[in-house]
């Protein structure tokens, strides 16, 4: 391993952050808002999906669980291809002119994250102590009340589901590259910028951006932990 890449990268990262390098801040900002928006959409769809798969009693439940878990293996490029086929200008959603825009990236990342959120939510609820549910039942809790109880009991797991999805999205390249197009000042995220700088042979810059990306992910995770701790402290 060439240490000029590692050490140079670390040094370069500090320089870029300290000097307020516009390219890096812009890409970081794009990464954050796109991934956060997509995580929000994916949670809005994935959490209910996981929830009802976990507690529902319906035909094909086992199959749905298997499908959700299988979709965790989905390569980002395939998600990109799938969404590309949906939104390219000659297709169904073509008139929206989404391709190569932040909107396209959000749609793609949402699809990528839905199975993650749903599968982890499902696991979080399935691994709950069934006694809690039983108790609520015997106490004569209404259905709505029961759902809230289960959600509350599983809150840590649900938060983890959202955090994992967010982490996955902020670090993914395939969807962003394919649907966003890595356009300067528009759809360039930290990850696509890293891919670009690497292809240009600017290894130190790429490594620096990678370190900044990791720092961002750490920040987001600490924030979530903090929310978790705060909630837990206040309520129980």
């Amino acid at each position, binding site marked *: 391993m060439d240490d000029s890449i590692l050490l140079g990268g670390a040094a370069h990262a500090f320089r870029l952050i300290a000097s307020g390098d516009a390219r890096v801040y812009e890409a970081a900002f794009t990464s954050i808002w796109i991934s956060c928006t997509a995580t929000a959409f994916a949670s809005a769809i994935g959490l209910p999906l996981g929830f009802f798969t976990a507690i529902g009693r319906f035909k094909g439940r086992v199959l749905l669980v298997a499908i959700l878990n299988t979709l965790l293996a989905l390569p980002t490029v395939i998600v990109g291809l799938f969404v590309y086929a949906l939104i390219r200008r000659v297709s169904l959603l073509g008139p929206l002119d*989404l391709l190569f825009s932040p909107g396209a990236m959000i749609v793609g990342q949402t699809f990528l994250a839905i199975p993650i959120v749903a599968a982890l939510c499902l696991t979080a609820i399935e691994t709950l102590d069934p006694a809690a549910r039983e108790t609520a039942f015997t106490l004569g809790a209404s259905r709505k009340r029961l759902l809230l109880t289960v959600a509350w009991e599983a809150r840590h797991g649900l938060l983890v589901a959202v955090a994992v999805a967010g982490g996955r999205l902020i670090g993914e390249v395939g969807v962003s590259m394919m649907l966003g197009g890595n356009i300067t000042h528009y759809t360039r995220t930290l990850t696509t910028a890293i891919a670009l700088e690497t292809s240009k042979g600017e290894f130190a810059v790429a490594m620096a951006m990678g370190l900044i990306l990791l720092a961002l992910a750490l920040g987001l995770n600490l924030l979530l932990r903090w929310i978790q701790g705060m909630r837990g402290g206040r309520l129980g």
Partner: protein
Amino acid sequence: MKRRVLGLLGSAIWLLSISGPACKKETAIKLATTTSTDNSGLLDVLLPAFTKESGIQVHVIAVGTGKALKHGENGDVDVVLVHARAAEERFVQDGFGVNRRDVMYNDFVILGPRDDPAGVGGMKEARKAMAKIAESTAYFVSRGDDSGTHEKEKELWKAAKVKPSGKWHLSVGQGMGVCLTVADEKQGYVLADRGTYLAYREAIDLSILVEGDPALFNPYGVIAVNPAKHPHVKHAEAMKLIEWLCSPAGQEIIAGFEKNGGKLFHPAAGR
């Protein structure tokens, strides 16, 4: 429930679509080009000058030549700027593009290890050098990604009457930069555009062994996506870009562009 989710998704997509492109006041066109063009830094000088004059923003999508043309075929972009003459002519013949114009050219060089095990250093004809490399035991690193550079490799192999296959032919399937790094690590031969080589010169231990053969010239063409095939393309704006690139103003910027101590492109419009 299902309805509500679908509704939510629908409105979300609608929101995205209006908040995306609509919030920019200037018109923006999409240009698909090759990574080597974008990596050279030329577009960072060229396009802002065009935007200043015309008020038209240009969004650059940098991919391999094959994919850039594919995006043109599918109407994903409004205009393409690529370097693969044969593929460009096919693109126009098949009705996907109109108004193809020569913009500029740069050239390819054959790089190899300093000790030059195949003994091609200083050869005047690229095809003979390629044949010699094939005969030797040294590696040849290929782009293998349908890029313009890959097309040129294939053209040269054909001229050399060599079928590039076997352990010595490493098809990497990635960009020029990665190929240079691989060629450096493996101390093999590689065909590279001069721009990328100059950018990498300090980082790699390979030198130029063959250059200057007209067969190594690398002409760039700009083509508007055919509005008859894809009515949604911004044809008028795309044509403005093409006209401007070939105008004295555009050509002058191309001629004056220097990087890493060398001129990378030579204007070619009106030749």
